């Protein structure tokens, strides 16, 4: 049985309440022991000294677009998971807006098949409605059995009240959340960015904050009424953050994720129509960006997710209004979290691990992940929170290069990513 001893790292595992220098023994794809340094000596075939680095449960990205089936010119399971591994992610949860839409057991299984060649774990989020058309619910139970961890019509939000209520009820019976991309698409037709002074100056139709928070508020009201679970995807507005904060105070089963770009960038960064700053939800105002930070610091936010959305050059090097929405994010999420949240805003490292590993595992019910408890899957992320480096899009392992973070200086990055006891990335 393969074994690996990771010595002298600072182990941070919020789920087990550990934050100490410890040795971690991995055997047979599982965590065999976490013990005082030196006590596990000689028990493994291989030993690794990672003194000075953080040893954390493998990071889990709750919101990724790996594009297959159907859009392999943007990304494949191979390239996307290579980027994930390089960014320190051991698991990615993949959205169903593929072609065809992942609304079936077959596609859910296809996505997880070893033949796809994924380097990290892939957990499908299945479509909530057939074809993500917002009308007829998919077979949640069968999809869950096939491996789906949640349901969502990401990008095509469920606006119909009756359909959403039924989706919440059905998902709750299976203890799954409905992941909602909150956008009232009836009011955002033709919009390419946030509504505000910048969109007015550029002469681009803008999405008002209300298009997001009206849906978040409705979903929360429904979660209350049906005692079900809703997960707010990539939250971006001050008002939606306030709504989630109130919901948590009221002990509702509402969770929320935020992307690194929404807590770092603002709509003004679009500059003169730079399509690398075009995504949905759009970059918002300073007040919204600050509300994202506040929500992270006060615990309203449960998770950081990338919304990694790769697009080919020809889909971005076009007129701003015609360019595809979305940016890549797998390789920059942990570095941004460390640089901005930990170093600048003094967010403790254990909280970063919680946002990127423990909480995502809890929300999607990924048993034996997001923790280093004995018996857990041997998924680990070893990172150096002090490493200074510069990210270049040209070095990305993703098939696409659509990132606004090209040339950014970061402090902190993953140095090793281990999935099922095997090293899949070593920096």
């Amino acid at each position, binding site marked *: 049985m393969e074994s690996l001893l990771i010595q002298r790292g600072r182990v941070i595992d919020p789920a087990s309440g550990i934050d100490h220098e410890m040795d971690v023994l991995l055997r047979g794809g599982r965590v065999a022991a976490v013990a005082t340094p030196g006590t596990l000596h000689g028990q493994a075939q291989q030993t690794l000294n990672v003194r000075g680095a953080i040893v954390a449960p493998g990071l889990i990205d709750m919101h990724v677009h790996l594009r297959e089936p159907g859009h392999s010119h943007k990304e494949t399971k191979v390239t996307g998971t290579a980027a994930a591994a390089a960014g320190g992610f051991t698991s990615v949860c993949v959205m169903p807006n593929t072609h065809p839409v992942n609304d079936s057991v077959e596609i859910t299984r296809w996505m997880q098949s070893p033949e796809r060649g994924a380097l990290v774990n892939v957990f499908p989020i299945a479509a909530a409605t057939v074809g993500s058309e917002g009308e007829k619910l998919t077979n949640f139970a069968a999809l869950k059995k096939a491996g789906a961890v949640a349901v969502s019509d990401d990008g095509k939000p469920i606006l119909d009240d009756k359909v959403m209520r039924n989706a919440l009820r059905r998902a709750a019976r299976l203890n799954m959340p409905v992941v909602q991309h909150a956008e009232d698409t009836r009011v955002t037709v033709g919009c390419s960015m946030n509504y505000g*002074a910048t969109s007015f100056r550029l002469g681009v139709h803008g999405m008002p904050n209300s298009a997001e928070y009206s849906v978040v508020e409705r979903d929360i009201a429904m979660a209350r009424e049906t005692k079900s679970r809703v997960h707010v995807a990539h939250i971006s507005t001050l008002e939606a953050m306030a709504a989630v904060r109130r919901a948590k105070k009221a002990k509702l089963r509402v969770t929320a994720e935020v992307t690194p770009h929404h807590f770092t960038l603002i709509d003004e960064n679009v500059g*003169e129509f730079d399509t690398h700053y075009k995504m949905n939800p759009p970059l918002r105002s300073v007040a919204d960006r600050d509300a994202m930070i506040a929500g992270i610091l006060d615990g309203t936010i449960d998770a950081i997710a990338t919304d990694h959305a790769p697009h080919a050059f020809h889909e971005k090097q076009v007129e701003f209004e015609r360019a595809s929405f979305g940016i890549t994010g797998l390789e920059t999420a942990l570095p941004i979290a460390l640089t901005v949240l930990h170093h600048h805003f003094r967010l403790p490292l254990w909280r970063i691990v919680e946002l990127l590993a423990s909480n995502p595992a809890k929300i999607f019910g990924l048993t034996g992940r997001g923790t280093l408890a004995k018996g857990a899957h041997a998924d680990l992320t070893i990172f150096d929170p002090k490493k200074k480096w510069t990210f270049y899009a040209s070095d990305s392992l993703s098939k696409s290069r659509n990132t606004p973070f090209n040339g950014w200086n970061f402090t902190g990055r993953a140095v090793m990513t281990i999935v099922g006891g095997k090293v899949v990335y070593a920096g």
Partner: protein
Amino acid sequence: MKPSLGSLLSIDQLTTEQIEAVLALARRMDPNRPTRLLHGKRVVLLFYEASTRTRTSFDFAAKALGAVTTLVTPTSSSIEKGESLIDTGWTVECIGADVIVMRHPNSGSAHLLARYMSVPIVNAGDGMHQHPSQALLDALTILNHKKQLRGLRVVIVGDIYHSRVARSNAELLSRFGAEVIFCGPLDFVPEVAATLAPGVSVSHDLNAALQGADVVMALRVQKERLAGKNHSVEDYVAHYQVTPQRMMLAKPDAILMHPGPVIRGMELASEVADGPQSCIHEQVRNGVKTRMAILAMVLGAKN
């Protein structure tokens, strides 16, 4: 003459000195006395959108300077076959364009093209964003009647939200210290419009806005846009049409402008459009002169 402008994409991009230089040169231009200033230069008019005034005046302007022009439109070219803007630009450049004058329905398209081309781009209108040559010719027109722009009260009335003319004009006028009042119904003149530039404000009451105005600029109002916002034509006309009575509220020497095309009976009463204060024809004439100056400057022609 001052160094070449490079591309002309927006008013924002120009320095105050560059604006003054264009206006000074425009005053000296005379379309009726052709020169060979741009002899041998090839001007491509890449028009993705319909246009009468702008296209024709750039065409005449180029020809009056001795350049040759070619018109490229989507329906008669590879654009129809799905060619990207950048590829079309490269093609036009490789064929030998010295400058590309472009009109395009998407905001920011001129900036996109300019990022990839090595020849200068002249923005002849991009979506709702900018129409710099219009703002320059409007400034020339105003300055034919007023000593300076500083201190003028300029009321721009109509569909501000959708108007590239409004944005370019407000940015230019604000730069020179004029007061700009955007006026129209809330759906056409959102509060955020006041953030465009210093000295820009928003009003939904035309009668109040016109008090003491030096310049009244009406913009085209499309019926479909009124209908889309549940406004009736009758209602718009009642509140926002520039009528002879309303012109009386402005200063006695106020001038009336309109970038065209005028929808008579909608934003302007015919008596006003054809009245003594109207500078609409002068604007069109100044369009040719201003565009001559712009082409000369972007091509860095020595005068």
